[in-house]
């Protein structure tokens, strides 16, 4: 399994392989879009999509092509795909707690269900590697995380786990490390931009 990406990389260079498509996955509100925007903005000065405290702001996968990740002397060209948060439940009443009207909340719930299905579809067909983003203030053992990491492992995709929001006082990134000892975990704040260099180094190493 370790040798496989290298071999593919070798043939890839030989035949002009397409760039690696890296999907940013995780539960709703983990900070996926904030992170995607930071990575893309660091590189190109543009943004991928809007961020919101209301869950399911991202209801369609958004792709940014040809993002160059620089770490030390290595350069890696990847496509970044920001995906809708994955969950097993969507209750429109939750959106109304943020002051949304019922009609609007129901429409958002319908779009969100399609978004989750779309995220799963991308994972099945079009993703070469995954950045799995978790909010360090939340319980990492939520079933949806165990399930998604299980699916990613079953598809043998390279993965980096991001312990996000370490700027918050009740962040406990250590819990994430003990939940997923089999994968590299990078502690960051996507919002504040803390520790991005370590993440870029890991991206260059894992998705090469």
């Amino acid at each position, binding site marked *: 399994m370790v040798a496989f990406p290298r071999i593919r990389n070798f043939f890839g260079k030989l035949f002009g392989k397409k760039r690696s498509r890296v999907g940013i996955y995780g539960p709703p509100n983990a900070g996926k879009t904030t992170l995607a925007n930071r990575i893309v903005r660091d590189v190109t000065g543009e943004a991928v999509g809007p961020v919101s405290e209301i869950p399911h702001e991202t209801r369609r996968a958004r792709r940014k092509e040809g993002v160059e990740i620089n770490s030390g002397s290595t350069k890696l060209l990847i496509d970044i795909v920001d995906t809708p948060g*994955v*969950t*097993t*439940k*969507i*209750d*429109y009443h939750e959106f109304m707690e943020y002051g949304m009207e019922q009609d609007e*909340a*129901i429409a958002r*719930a*319908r779009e969100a*269900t*399609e978004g*989750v*299905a779309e995220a*799963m*579809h991308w*994972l*099945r067909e079009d993703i070469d590697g995954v950045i799995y983003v978790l909010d360090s203030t939340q*319980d990492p*053992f939520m*079933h949806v995380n*165990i*399930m998604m*990491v*299980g*699916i990613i*492992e*079953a598809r043998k995709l390279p993965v980096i786990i991001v312990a996000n929001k370490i700027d918050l006082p009740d962040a406990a990134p250590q819990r994430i490390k*003990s*939940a*997923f*000892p*089999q994968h590299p975990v990078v502690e960051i704040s996507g919002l504040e931009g803390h520790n991005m260099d370590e993440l870029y180094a890991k991206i260059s190493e894992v998705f090469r």
Partner: protein
Amino acid sequence: MIQGVQIDMLSAERLSKMTSYEKIRLILDDVRQGSVVVLEKGLTPEEQGKLLETTMMEINPGTFSGIEIETYPSSGSDKGFITKLFGKKSNVPRLMVIGPVDQLKMLSREKDRLIAWASAAQ
């Protein structure tokens, strides 16, 4: 009849004779009627992904809000004999509990113990 929640417990043997589609259909049909399903042997990652996608297609605001699904959190923390021997553990979880999200709440989740609360449908 007494008020309560129906619990459908499926043995590993029974599950092994079912196709993936049959398992997913049975789970969602049960859960949509307000039952809780307990699987002696959990779904594979592929089956869980399919269950998730099918759940999303069947969510209907106001009538069905989705599922609660839980298993012992063995992933990662499970560094047993098999893991050491083959360097990789089985991806099929042990016992799995699935129920309607508005009726089944997980209270706590430990390595070898799950505590859930089930309430009757409104």
